[in-house]
């Protein structure tokens, strides 16, 4: 399973590096979201800085939808999805590989967004360990849910509109917990983020396990 996951993740990342969709479209989209939040709330950093964590994670959530849609768009051209099914790869490995590639891309994006909230909103990025831990755990949860619902939506004609409808309500615990954990870190009290990190870890484990079990049948039925 892990061998297959590495193979699929390597393929997806290679395609992304070559197509530069993440760099040229998803990255600028996420930064534009940050900028628009800034415009909507006004230039006062006393308003923006306390809202940094929430705005950061909303931008991450929206970007995840694009990342997941892109992950399945590459499988929809020239019968590649059937090629993947014919390949003999373990479906659980395909799930882990696709989710892993999304995780890598999101972590890179989150690094850029963190710089963005520091520059645009004046947020002080303190409590680095909690910030990074939150990003890693939250991103695993987001990627797992996105990859799972992405395969459901990808086989349908209404996939572009269906994925956000399925995805956003389910990941609301990640938005809440990650925002709270980041709030604590940015406020200089990272020690109080432990409970929220636990929530993120449980969510990630739950959805990774669900994906490993459910991805195969969903890939076949999609």
């Amino acid at each position, binding site marked *: 399973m892990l061998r297959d996951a590495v*193979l699929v993740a390597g*393929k997806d990342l290679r395609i992304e590096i070559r197509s530069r969709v993440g760099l040229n479209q998803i990255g600028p989209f996420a930064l534009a979201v940050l900028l628009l939040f800034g415009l909507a709330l006004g230039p006062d950093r006393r308003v923006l800085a306390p809202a940094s964590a929430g705005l950061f994670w909303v931008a991450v959530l929206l970007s995840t939808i694009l990342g997941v849609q892109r992950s399945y768009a*590459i499988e929809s051209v*020239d*019968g590649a999805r059937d*090629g993947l*099914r*014919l390949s003999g790869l373990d479906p659980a490995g395909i799930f882990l590989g696709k989710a892993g590639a999304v995780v890598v891309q999101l972590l890179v994006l989150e690094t850029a967004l963190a710089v963005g909230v520091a520059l645009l909103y004046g947020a002080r990025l303190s409590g680095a360990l909690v910030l990074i831990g939150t990003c890693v755990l939250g991103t695993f949860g987001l990627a797992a849910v996105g990859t799972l619902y992405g395969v459901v939506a990808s086989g349908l004609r209404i996939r572009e509109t269906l994925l956000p409808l399925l995805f956003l309500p389910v990941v609301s615990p990640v938005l809440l917990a990650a925002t709270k954990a980041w709030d604590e870190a940015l406020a200089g009290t990272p020690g109080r983020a432990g409970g929220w990190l636990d929530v993120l870890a449980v969510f990630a484990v739950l959805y990774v396990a669900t994906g490993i079990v459910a991805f195969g049948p969903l890939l*076949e039925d999609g």
Partner: protein
Amino acid sequence: MPPAVRLHEAVALAGRFPLLAGACLEVGEGEVVHLRGPNGAGKTSLLKVLAGLLPVHSGEATVLGWDLVADRRAVRGQVGMLGHESFLYEELTVEENLEFAVRASRGPVVGIRPALEQFGFTGRLASIPLARCSAGQRRRASLALLVARGARLWLLDEPHAGLDQDGRDLLDELLAGSRAASRTVVFASHELERATAIADRTVHLAGGRVVEPPKTPESVEQAAAHVA
């Protein structure tokens, strides 16, 4: 020796529409079988069922010893399919596509280079993204993948389509050598002259079932002469 393919009253559905409506077929190991029939007869559906891509709703279906009714995924590593689509990734080069697919099916990586060369992917051509290849080159890339994977059963849907004369001859040569390579081939083709020359036998499909060959004036005459 058990047959490589055995279908008995196999039914496959798309919603409630029967793609296969009780198809019966046996194909021996190393045999090359040509599927013939009008558009919508069920040729592509039959190939997809054999590849494990379409579920068998009822009846029996065994491919290379695997029962497709119980588990249609297990056989896929042993099956190579050439469809109307290439099943390859546009952004990857031909070589990268083959490498991914061969590694995925746990096939022999050493077979990639010779397969590429056999289908004319030498030098720079092997390392350009598939998106920049012509339709014929994509077809050649798909064929190179079949060869590199070393699958035991080839399922080909209109394999000559899009190929130039050299490509067609190369394909015919490969199919002619199937028995020697212990490879079973089931292919659908409307190119009757070529198909009949390559195949060990022709199977006729109509309405999702294997049927007797339609009667032509010549065959009626022959039958009458035989009776007389």
